[in-house]
């Protein structure tokens, strides 16, 4: 065992953990070719006037100029902002409250957990169609309340341009909150019982314990949850298609639908690529500084 001191050269850095490197090669290639390559390809072609088929005839910023002069694009962004902010806040708040309630050592906990998580097992399309019926004024909630005697009751979100996005938000929350609750519950279960005991000994009220001790300790869980919710927001598409198909009068359009419609229905790839590049850019603007702060700084314990 006298390796130290001998003149053997250290094995090349390249061949360390060779097996692991070979094993991850397919994934690295996929990431480079499919994700990075595809992204670069999309960005390059967004500067062309590609119609049905991609072709390299550059037109400068024309596609972007057209994109930013479309009122439909502005509506889409506005809707995504409203949906995004509200869905982030409400899923976190509702999810956490449900989890905290379930954490009170109640009876039939697993039954409740199953009930709350169940909507997550449904696809967005099924969720969207179901809520389209529930919110339909002629045989949904409005009809039921009216037939109970409140004749003037009005609840018609999917047919009202001003509030249609909230109708979609309701369905989105119904579908997604259960998962957030489960994540939060797992986080709460990870908190040491002794901390609760100590807080109780010190006479700190329960709500304060949650707010100032437990929640800060659940930081990693919150970050995971945030990423899951955020990715769900940006790709918002199928829910809208199933519930309103962008209506009434284009009032519930979202960016992902704009991209699909222009790439495949309007046979205008360039316009679709320009829109998807803008989506990528906005995601990058939010994610990059955050990732830098989160992972780039000093390592946290």
């Amino acid at each position, binding site marked *: 065992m006298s390796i130290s001191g001998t003149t053997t050269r250290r094995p090349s850095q390249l061949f360390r953990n060779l097996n692991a490197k070979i094993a991850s090669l397919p994934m690295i290639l996929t990431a480079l070719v499919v994700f990075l390559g595809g992204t670069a390809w999309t960005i390059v072609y967004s500067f062309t006037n590609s119609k049905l088929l991609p072709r390299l005839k550059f037109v400068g910023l024309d596609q972007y100029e057209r994109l930013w002069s479309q*009122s439909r694009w502005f509506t889409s962004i506005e809707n995504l902002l409203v949906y995004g902010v509200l869905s982030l806040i409400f899923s976190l708040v509702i999810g956490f409250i449900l989890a905290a309630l379930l954490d009170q050592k109640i009876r039939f906990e697993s039954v409740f957990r199953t009930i709350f998580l169940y909507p997550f097992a449904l696809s967005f399309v099924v969720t969207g169609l179901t809520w389209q019926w529930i919110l339909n*004024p002629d045989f949904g909630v409005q009809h039921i309340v009216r037939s109970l005697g409140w004749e003037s009751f009005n609840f018609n979100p999917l047919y009202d*341009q001003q509030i249609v996005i909230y109708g979609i938000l309701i369905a989105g929350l119904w579908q997604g909150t259960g998962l957030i609750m489960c994540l939060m519950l797992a986080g709460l279960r990870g908190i040491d019982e002794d901390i609760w005991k100590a807080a109780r000994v010190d006479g700190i009220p329960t709500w304060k314990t949650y707010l100032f001790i437990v929640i800060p300790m659940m930081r990693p869980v919150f970050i995971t949850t945030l990423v899951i919710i955020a990715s769900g927001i940006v790709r918002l598409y199928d829910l809208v298609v199933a519930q309103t198909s*962008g209506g009434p009068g284009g*009032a519930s359009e979202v960016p992902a639908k704009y991209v699909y419609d222009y790439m495949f229905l309007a*046979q*205008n790839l360039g316009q679709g690529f320009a829109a998807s590049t803008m989506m990528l850019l906005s995601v990058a603007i939010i994610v990059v500084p955050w990732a830098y702060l989160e992972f780039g700084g000093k390592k946290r314990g």
Partner: protein
Amino acid sequence: MRYHFLAAALAASTAITLAAPAGAADLEVTHWWTSGGEAAAVAEFAKAFDATGNKWVDGAIAGGGSTARPVMVSRITGGSPMAATQFNTGRQAEELVEAGLMRDFTDLAAKEGWKDFIRPASLLEGCTVDGKVYCVPVNIHSWQWLWLSNKAFEDAGVPVPTNWDEFVAAGPALEKAGKIPLAIGGQSWQTTGTFNVLIPAIAGKDVFLKVYQDHDAEVAAGPEIAKVFKAADDARKMSAKSNVQDWNQATNLVITGQAGGQIMGDWAQGEFQVAGQVAGKDYTCLPGLGVNQLISTGGDSFYFPKLDDADKTAAQEVLASTMLNASTQVAFNLKKGSVPVRGDVDVSAANDCMKKGLDILAKGNIIPDTNQLNTEDTNNQLNDLFVEFFKTPSMTPEEAQKRYAAIIASAD
């Protein structure tokens, strides 16, 4: 043991394939005809093609043209083309043809004399790129129809209108009787269609051609189109209470007398037929909205992607001439509710409304379909504009016209 069995089975299946008569082939044909009447019409094509010794493999794609076209295009560009596919007569497959992905049927067309019997000539022109024929038109559909429910007008106590102005005038009476004056489904193409029908009716054929054929933005921003927007504003008010999505649901409102009328293409006739209604007695049809007796000559065409297989390539020609065969044309179109593309076939089985259409066609009062004049990109932008206009009461006609003119200016 298992391997031997598998090998034997494979060998046997190859033998069967080889034993099939030379020249005969299975052709997959994709289309979006899935409703009852449409499926029955397609079955006529399949029957006629099977009779030639080949086999029709049905590739119906549900969900309508806007769902089906992306699937068809990605299959063709992705390298696994079907043997034949439907598109609307017009510019939808233009780029696929330009990219050399479609088969050219110029020789067959010349041999069978398609030019002599396909009428109007614009149909074959729509299939022709640089002097070569790339598709087979199979039917003629027109958009310019106002369908009226006789019962709704009876209930409202007003006579059934004979033109657009009388219809607008009857609006308040219909509303008082609890009817929706004009039914329009929420899908965007229906609102665009309504507007495009109003143009030739209100402003005339020349304006229609200047806007859509020459893409003249000045005319689009001018006083004639302003009148059309005024009429569209009327239509918008009359359709405010119509909250259905699909076109056939809107037609159903007319059939049941809940709505006064609907502007829709002649395919709506199939719905009236299925409901057992009689033209003239239960419902009234006004071609060209009763103002300008003009109809457009859109419809469906079949395109044949280039294939490597020699047998299939030969069978494609058989399919093309089968589709244009006189008896197939009659059988198919009677079930489809459309007009045959051949001027030399017997259509005495047609009903009153269809005969009105045939009459106008014979007089030559026709305009091209917007699918033939506009790219899908332009149509899609128009869809975005009109669905917003029809569903946003606060949007003024002037504001909408400005955006309309901008779309026409950028159209190619």
